[in-house]
């Protein structure tokens, strides 16, 4: 199995994971699941970074570390928000949370 074939495979997987993530974010109503799908999209991107670093050098892997650390911070904030929403509505259903407008 050639190196290029593995990279292609990783990129396809990354695209599939990303599409699943997008679908989940758009379609699911549970905030936790939406949040998980966001993480999924992030990691799909991470996967493609790592795959590209095979071809283009080490830069992609360095970026992945940044993404992971930012994602950790984002998870802290995001989970705190979800917690706050839950305390308010006694639910994490996003359909109930419709005040984000004029």
């Amino acid at each position, binding site marked *: 199995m050639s190196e290029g074939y593995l990279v292609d495979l990783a990129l396809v997987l990354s695209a599939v994971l990303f599409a699943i993530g*997008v679908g989940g*974010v*758009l*379609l699911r*109503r549970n905030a936790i699941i*939406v949040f998980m799908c966001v993480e999924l999209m992030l990691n799909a991107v991470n996967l493609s970074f790592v795959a590209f670093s095979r071809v283009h050098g080490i830069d992609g892997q360095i970026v992945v570390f940044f993404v992971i650390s930012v994602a950790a911070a984002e998870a802290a904030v995001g989970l705190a928000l979800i917690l706050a929403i839950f305390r308010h509505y006694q639910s994490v259903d*996003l*359909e109930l*949370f*419709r*005040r*984000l*407008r*004029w």
Partner: protein
Amino acid sequence: MSEAYHPILPALILGLPLLGAALNGIGAFAWRENKTVPTIVGPLAVLGAFVVCLLNFAAMRAAAPHDPSLVPLWTWMRSGQLEIGVTLLFDQLSVLMTLIVTGVGGIIHVYSVGYMREDPGYSRYFSYLNLFIFFMLLLVLGANYPLMFVGWEGVGLCSYLLIGFWYENREFSDAGKKAFIVNRIGDIGFLIAMFLLFGVFGTLDMPTIFERAPTTLLAGGAVVTAITLFLFLGCVGKSAQIPLFVWLPDAMAGPTPVSALIHAATMVTAGVYLVARSGVLFALAPFTQAIVASVGVGTALFAASIAVQQYDIKKVLAYSTISQLGYMFVAVGVGAYTAGIFHLMTHAFFKALLFLGAGAVIHAMHHAWDESGDHGDPNDMRNYGGLRRLMPITAATMWIGTLAISGVFPFAGFFSKDEIIWEAGVRGYAVLWGTALIVALLTAGYMTRLMVMTFHGDNRSFAKVGGGEAGANRSGESARGRLHEVPPVMWVPLAILAALSAVGGWVQIPEVLPLPNLDLLHSWLEPVFAPAVDVASAASGAAAGGAHGEGMAHEAPLGGGEAFWAVMGTVLAILTIIVVFRRLSRRRYLPAAESSEPRGAASLLYHKWYVDELYDRLIVRPLLALWRGCWRIVDDRLIDGAVNGLGGVARVVGWTGSQLQTGRVSTYLLVFMIGVLIILGSLAF
């Protein structure tokens, strides 16, 4: 030939009245109840200025300078070519005018002490009056047109303030506004004339302009005609000539001494002064001169005809003033500047006297009615009658004024009016001459009517049976004792003015009369008017191809020499007075409340030829309709519509945009994703 003349204390002439105005103005706020300060400061400021003017007069008489003296105080504005200084001009004309202004003004200030004593606005009154004197002196002494214009506007302001002095009365404050607005129309003319003058000469200093005018301007050309016509428009407004005279009768709403000072003796004559001062320019524009004289004589006749049927004593005098101003414009219009200034001076004496006399009557009526409980219009002559026994001094002095204004020898008006009529006739203006004569007879007629209604016959002031609250069963007789002569502070000024009205004309006695030949005024003013006379005679000489003054006749249009017509004038005036007196003495007038409006031709005159109504229909209402249209359509519809429309558009756009905000997170994400796809797509292809 002459030694140097230096104006004495020039700043003091203007400074004293200004200081008086400031002190009294402060007093109006700081010590309202104190009447001592205004009583002293008000008249003294003007009388002090009068003394300084007298000193200047004496010095100028001794030196007999040929050229005007300029007193530059400071530079007012400098911009490029334009330089306007606060510079005072002292020549024979301006010094004579300052004497009239401060002299008659001082007398009226003293009179006001008695007249306004009980008014709560006493201090404010004197502040305005002093300020008026200041601006009037500035007008007279200004050495350039803009400075004169400051005085011109300043007296207009004081006139407005004093007409609306009793501003609680809506009618009075409206009269003030009317005077102010009508004067604005004239002032536009003055301004345009100044622009034109600056355009032609590059300066606005009067001595420079007058010196250069004969060479710079084409005699009878369009430029000088336009300049003088616009200047004259200013005069028409200020001096209440046709068509802008309507403000002056309404100006009688002010206190009577104000009418005497501003609306008879001084401010309204400013137009005559301006024409005389700019004599060189007017001499270059024969067309304008014809207009000036025609407007003058037309106004004289028109106003005199109205005066015949007025019942308000002050209205009679107001129309009389307009009529006499018309005379002055006839004089300056035909080029007899000295005659115009002569009549200005004598008119200041006798018209101030007549107004102050009327004020004395009104004052007495007011007091008597206050005590007796009767009430009515204290200005209405139908409520007077028989006052000569009750107010002998006022009656005697006013008779002197009446004889003076009617042109009876040897009173002041005779000499000045005779000179104007003669000058018009001798220059070949037959129509002016004839009309002026008729107006002289009308003048004698309406003044005699005023005197008869006020001072002769039976008294009609008090209701016979039960007029007042306390007078249910009192006859008018007992109340009559309350009507008495005014205090000395008021009748002494009357006496002084009566003396001036009697002898004031003797400064200029025609050669042809068998009297000591006095030629003070003509020789006094000769240096001022010589350039204008030269220009005029050069023009007429060029036209006739002859020598100086050959176009002058030595006869009136109907034949007869100067002496004949001088005698005729007096005889006709006396005859008119006797006829009118005898006819009206027999007539029985009813008090104002009981009489009905005049009918027929008299009604037309009583309603002042319906000029106010005509202006109301032709000008005021269309303008109001136009502005109402502007308000309803331009403002309400267009401007407000545009503003509200923009707001509406913003609302609609905002509402449309806000519909994107569903509040559902998934919608936002969907849109977000579509956006990303679009961006990616555009990057890819």
